């Protein structure tokens, strides 16, 4: 099968699923809708596997497949064609998107079985997959942007899926508008790239890059990278545009798993890794990215410690882990960033689906203070969630250990990194361990605080099978990126497959400087020790009933209140940004639109009507008046003739 056919089919399957379910959006037959949706994404997954197999068969330095579907925009010197590029980076992405996506579709069949509009849900999910594939496979910035906008739209549609609830609809709106702000910056970045390089195709950009890095803040590449990063921070929920992600938990839980853990929020990381060659030439922007990533990771983790809604904890955890990924790209560790993206997709999706299973079993209860001891009611959910927990806090040999440690090591040792950032990252890892253990303890362990009328039970097979698959992936997913410092001890001498795979397209900044392997092992051991200690502490505090947490938060008083209220960031935005804008808009509307523009248009109409009224009086039915007009006309003409001659 030719590449063009394969890539076209890759897109057509989700599109057909979208149309099929979209046309039948009123149907309540969740089995058919779910089957079609899952089959569409499953077929795309099979095609992705075929394509990646093809890619593996190619030589390492020519590892890319380009498919040109049709000419799209060709104006003057600006070309943007509908062509798609499959290379190692996008290969990883399409496997994640279609693979994890099909598991989530399968899960949704069970989750949305009692919903009003299951077909609408599956059609939106398929549309999302389509747009996400566009995003990662596009070979120029404009096709990427089409997918970018498309996933933003689907995110809005899916967050506000139960839009009859005003708060949920508002959450969807918030996500969309915050994304838009990022998109505006993205567009400015796109324009800057075009004016600088004359083309927005990735292959052209890579070949046109200058050799030396820029310094200062006014260079064209620096500015382009800066604006593209602002766009990425909108999509990937970094400071200051992260506020939509916690609110996005208003949507159905599988949506949170797919969009806000595994795929859409990783689009920003993908963009920067794709343009990694350009970013290396703008070290100031890279430093800014690293700082913002670290700060976001830290602050989100502090907020997660105090949250009581299971999905909100996971949401802030996502923001925090995305901060890690941005920290990685900021210090030039592009390969570890992609690695963490992949492992995070596995374990975060797993945990979101697990929480969905819990919520489903608890009849839509989401407050973890009302849960507890669910271990004996939901063994499969508990076991898979446990795997996800071990992965995220970074216990070897599960996936999160390898990816997170790579990031921390690169931050410590890279020439573009800094020890301060490493310290922040390490403290965040410790906090991650704490709040995730707290979550596990309050939800699954300890004694049950479940209310009497709720009878939790294990979820059906369609929901537990994806959990099991993701659990397996979380366990073994990290083994393709084992760093050399560990693999030298393992039998069989497993190489760092991922680094080799991504080498032609995503070169990380090589580690120079005095860092040695010994330091790496020491840091690894140190972090792991801290993590285990803190987890044990959290287990003691929360699994056994203890009054210490409330005493501590009481002692910290206003600080803990501020943290619990998310540092009042939303309120700050509302009062300092949104309300003044609304007032300004209202003022503009009143003084310019109503008073000025409307009056001007009324001028024209009033003039016409007034003229009509005046002329109307010429015809008042008085015959003698008419005779007078006739005679006046006659006299006028005669005068003109006689006077003229």
């Amino acid at each position, binding site marked *: 099968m030719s590449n063009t056919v394969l890539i076209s089919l890759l897109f057509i399957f989700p599109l057909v699923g979208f149309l099929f379910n979209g046309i039948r959006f009123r149907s309540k037959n969740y089995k058919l809708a779910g089957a079609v949706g899952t089959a569409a994404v499953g077929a795309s997954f099979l095609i992705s596997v075929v394509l990646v197999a093809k890619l593996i068969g190619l030589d390492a330095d020519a590892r890319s497949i380009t498919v040109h579907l049709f000419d799209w925009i060709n104006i003057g010197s600006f070309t943007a064609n509908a062509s798609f590029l499959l290379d190692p980076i996008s290969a990883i992405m399409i496997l994640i998107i279609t693979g994890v996506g099909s598991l989530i579709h399968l899960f949704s069949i069970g989750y949305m079985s009692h919903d009003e509009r299951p077909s609408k849900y599956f059609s939106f999910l398929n549309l999302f997959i389509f747009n996400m594939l566009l995003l990662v496979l596009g070979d120029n910035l404009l096709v990427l942007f089409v997918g970018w906008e498309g996933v933003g739209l689907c995110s809005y549609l899916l967050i506000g899926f139960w839009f009859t609830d005003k708060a949920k609809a508002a959450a969807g709106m918030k996500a969309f508008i915050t994304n838009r702000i990022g998109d505006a910056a993205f567009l400015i970045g796109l324009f800057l790239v075009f004016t600088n390089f004359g083309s927005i195709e990735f292959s052209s950009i890579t070949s046109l890059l200058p050799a030396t890095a820029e310094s200062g803040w006014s260079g064209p590449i620096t500015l382009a990278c800066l604006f593209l990063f602002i766009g990425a921070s909108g999509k990937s929920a970094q400071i200051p545009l992260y506020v939509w992600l916690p609110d996005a938990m208003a949507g159905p839980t599988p949506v949170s798993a797919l969009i806000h853990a595994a795929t859409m929020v990783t689009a920003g990381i993908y963009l920067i890794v794709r343009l990694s060659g350009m970013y290396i030439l703008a070290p100031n922007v890279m430093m800014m990215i690293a700082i913002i990533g670290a700060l976001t990771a830290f602050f989100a983790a502090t907020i997660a410690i105090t949250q009581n809604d299971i999905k909100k904890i996971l949401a802030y955890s996502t923001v925090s882990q995305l901060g890690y990924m941005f920290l990685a790209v900021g210090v030039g560790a592009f390969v570890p960033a992609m690695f963490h993206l992949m492992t995070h997709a596995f374990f975060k999706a797993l945990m979101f689906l697990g929480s969905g299973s819990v919520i489903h079993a608890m009849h839509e209860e989401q407050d973890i203070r009302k849960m507890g001891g669910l271990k004996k009611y939901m063994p499969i959910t508990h076991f898979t969630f446990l795997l996800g927990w071990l992965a995220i806090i970074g216990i070897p040999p599960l996936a999160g250990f390898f990816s997170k440690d790579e990031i921390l090591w690169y931050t410590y040792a890279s020439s573009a990194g800094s020890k301060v950032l490493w310290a922040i990252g390490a403290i965040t890892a410790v906090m991650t361990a704490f709040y995730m253990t707290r979550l596990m303890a309050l939800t699954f362990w300890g004694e049950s605080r479940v209310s009497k009328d709720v009878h939790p039970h294990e979820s059906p097979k369609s929901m537990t099978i994806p959990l099991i698959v993701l659990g397996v992936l979380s366990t073994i997913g990290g083994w393709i990126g084992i760093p050399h410092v560990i693999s030298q001890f393992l039998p069989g001498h497993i190489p760092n497959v991922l680094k080799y795979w991504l080498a032609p397209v995503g070169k990380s900044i090589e580690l120079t400087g005095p860092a040695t392997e010994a330091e790496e092992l020491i840091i690894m051991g140190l972090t792991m020790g801290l993590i285990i200690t803190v987890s044990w502490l959290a287990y003691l505090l929360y699994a056994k009933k203890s009054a210490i947490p409330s005493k501590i938060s009481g002692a910290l008083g206003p600080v803990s209140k501020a943290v619990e209220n998310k540092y009042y960031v939303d309120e700050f935005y509302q009062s300092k940004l949104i309300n003044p804008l609304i007032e300004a808009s209202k003022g503009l509307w009143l003084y310019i639109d109503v008073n000025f523009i409307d009056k001007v248009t009324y001028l024209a109409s009033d003039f016409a009507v007034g003229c009509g009224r005046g002329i109307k009086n010429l015809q008042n039915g008085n015959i*003698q008046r008419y005779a*007078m007009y006739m*005679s*006046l006309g*006659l*006299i006028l003409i*005669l005068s003109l003739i*006689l006077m003229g001659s």
Partner: protein
Amino acid sequence: MDISVLLFYGMSFIILSFALAVVVSNNPVYSAFYLAITMVSLAFVYFLLQAYFIAGVQLIVYAGAVMVLFVMVLMMFDLKKEKDSFSKGRLSNILKVGSVGWLWGLIAGAIYMSSDLLSIGATLHTKDGVGTTTKDLAILLYTDYIFAFELLGLLLLLIAVGAVAVSRIKGGTHA
């Protein structure tokens, strides 16, 4: 000073003053009477101009038929008093009279300016061929203008039928 000159001035004075009286008088019956006098004076002037047939027709048709019709209709209306005889609106009245006066001035000016073209002479002189008698008028009517003459007859027929059709009462033998 010829007698015809005196007659002309006298008759034209009568014509103009009685015409003015037609327009100015409050009572429409008086207006009809003054109009009749104006018609007769005009017939007199036609006699002065040696248009005997026309003078005769003027007397018969206008003073005899049209004025009778007017008086008959006035009788039918039986108007007791005439308030609001002139149209309202001081400005438009002044405008109307002024414009008409200006019109008369224009025409008089035009006549004066082209007077050298028009001063043909006061005395009669005959042309060869076509004479100026009634007989010649009749010959012209029945040879050169026969078509218009016949149409005129048709027009009178139409007028007669139309006048009856306009003013009939409902009923009659026609369905």
